[in-house]
């Protein structure tokens, strides 16, 4: 039974066996269709341009152009394509750079099979999604650092309203959407956002999302 509006997906991974496995996982699901496969970063950018998929699932370690660079190019030119990064690394350095490059979701390959479908559906809905293992590692690093340096948990500094807005921003909502949801003016939301960024000492949305994942506010 052909669906009316299937989610169109492009897979980019230099490993053929891996791609085949992922394709099987995705196509077992209703409403998901893999429309193209790329073997390296450059090919992935080309396919994104040609096929304009809804979701681009991409490995980081690829020849020619790595997944992060490819994400940067794709999200700059086609912001409507949601990018899911598949990686072997649960390190913050990769995650933060993937987010800065425009990725909306970051999955560990260990758990790809379990999380991939959920991640694809989340990013299509405009949300972020991270493997639970990633959140765990980030949280552990964060807690250890707080404990060691004796620093205050800056989350405590936020007012309940600010925490609410932090979560909505991290989930990918725009200022306008947040304002409508909370019955506030866009200006007030902007003020809250600036205050949050200042209190948490964050620079940019990727760091905010990373922070939210760390704190378990989003997954």
């Amino acid at each position, binding site marked *: 039974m052909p669906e009316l509006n299937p989610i169109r997906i492009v897979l980019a991974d*230099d*490993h053929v*066996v*891996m791609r*085949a*496995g*992922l394709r*099987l*996982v995705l196509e*077992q699901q209703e409403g998901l269709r893999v429309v193209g496969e790329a073997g390296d970063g450059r090919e992935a950018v080309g396919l994104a341009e040609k096929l304009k998929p809804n979701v681009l699932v991409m490995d*980081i*370690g690829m020849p020619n152009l*790595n997944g*992060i660079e490819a994400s940067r190019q794709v999200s700059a030119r086609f912001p409507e394509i949601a990018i899911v990064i598949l990686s*072997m*690394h649960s*390190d*913050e*350095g*990769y995650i933060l*750079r993937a987010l800065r490059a425009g990725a909306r979701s970051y999955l560990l*390959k*260990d758990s*790809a*099979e*379990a999380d991939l479908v959920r991640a694809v559906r989340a990013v299509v809905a405009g949300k972020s999604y991270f493997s639970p293992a990633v959140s765990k590692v980030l949280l*552990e*690093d964060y807690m*250890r*650092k707080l404990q*060691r*340096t004796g620093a205050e948990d800056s989350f405590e500094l936020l007012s309940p309203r600010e925490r609410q807005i932090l979560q909505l921003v991290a989930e990918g909502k725009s200022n306008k959407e947040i304002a409508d949801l909370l019955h506030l003016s866009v200006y007030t939301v902007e003020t809250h956002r600036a205050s949050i960024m200042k209190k948490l000492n964050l620079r940019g949305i990727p760091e905010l999302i990373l922070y939210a994942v760390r704190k378990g506010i989003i997954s």
Partner: protein
Amino acid sequence: MAEDLGDRRVRRLKLVLFCAFGAMLLLMVGSGWEVMRLLGELNAEHQRVQSDYAQRMRMAEQISTAYRDYAVKARRELAATAAEQEQQKKELPEVTQVVEVVEHYPHPLTSDEEIVLRRIYVTLARHRAAMQSALGNDPSKRAAAIQQLLAADGDTVLASAQGLQALNAGALHQNDSVLEERFGSLRARSLLLLAVALASGLMIALGSLAYILKLQREAQLRYLEISENRSELKKLSARLVETQESERKALSRELHDEIGQSLGSLLVDVGRLSALVPSEEQAGTLVGKIKGEAEHVIQSVRSMALLLRPSMLDDLGLIPALEWQAREVSRQGTAEVEVFAEDIPDNLLPDSYRTCVYRVVQEALHNVSRHSGASHARIDVQLAHDQLSVSVQDDGRGFDPHTRGLGLVGMGERVKDLGGTLTIDSQAGAGTIVRAVLPLPAA
């Protein structure tokens, strides 16, 4: 063998020079002493001759004076007795006092002197006898006879005394010329010695010069050899580092991309399998077990790959790799490590620089967590004025940088290969700062 031969020759040359120098020194000391001795002798001789001369002159003068005294007294007595004609027995002064003076004259040196001296004796003896007989004469004739005797013998004695003085003066002159001759010969000998000393000194100087030049040449040769060896060693070590790095990289890639990816897709398949098999069945638990095992293996492979060479270094760049390294060390639980750095565009840093900095920091952090006992460490990376400066600072117990281990030596070599410098600042109880400064390659 050639080394031995050269050594033996050098040793022989050294011995010859040493002996020659010693001999020259002995010669100079000996001849100097001899000259001094001869000069002293000459001086003493001169003094003796002078005083002898003066004594003889004085004695000759005394003879003249004594005779004149005697003649004056005799004439005075004679005049006194002339008044008292009768007193015939009246005695005249004896000539013995003159003889006594003559007897004090030093031993004659020449036969001429002896003849003159004897003449004086003889004259005085005859005079004495003549005076005795004259005293016995008729008083009228006596005075004239005595007057004549006194005058005639006086002439003889005084002339002889003068003769003695003349002889003396001649002897002095002769002595002077003898001394002069001896002095002349001494001077000639001294000159000869001086010439010999100068000649041997010159020879020794030339020998030493040759020896020094030879040593210098050898030292230069050896220096060249050593510096050549060192540069070869340096090249070798750089090559070794390069090889190790590229092999690590290849191995890490192989582990990560081939084995890791295969395991990854295996895991995906196992995951799909477990979705097909109900978990309460025996097959389900088995699939679960396989999945757990595969996850474990994949984790190990990944750690191994990262240990060999972190993929961040190639995928993300230097700073993310350093941040990862810092987090890894922090996770081990000994020290909390923070990185303070701006992201450095990768096109500014060639791979060799990234690797060098990464390995230096890795080694420094290894020391921090293993030995320093530090609770905090910070990594600072700065890019300014065409040079990259990286430092790792801890608050640990510090160490003596001079007792640097192999790891630190390796760090130093890596940095030096890229034309940079590595400094280690550490004091017991005051922590450690390891700092590497690398000049950036010309763009």
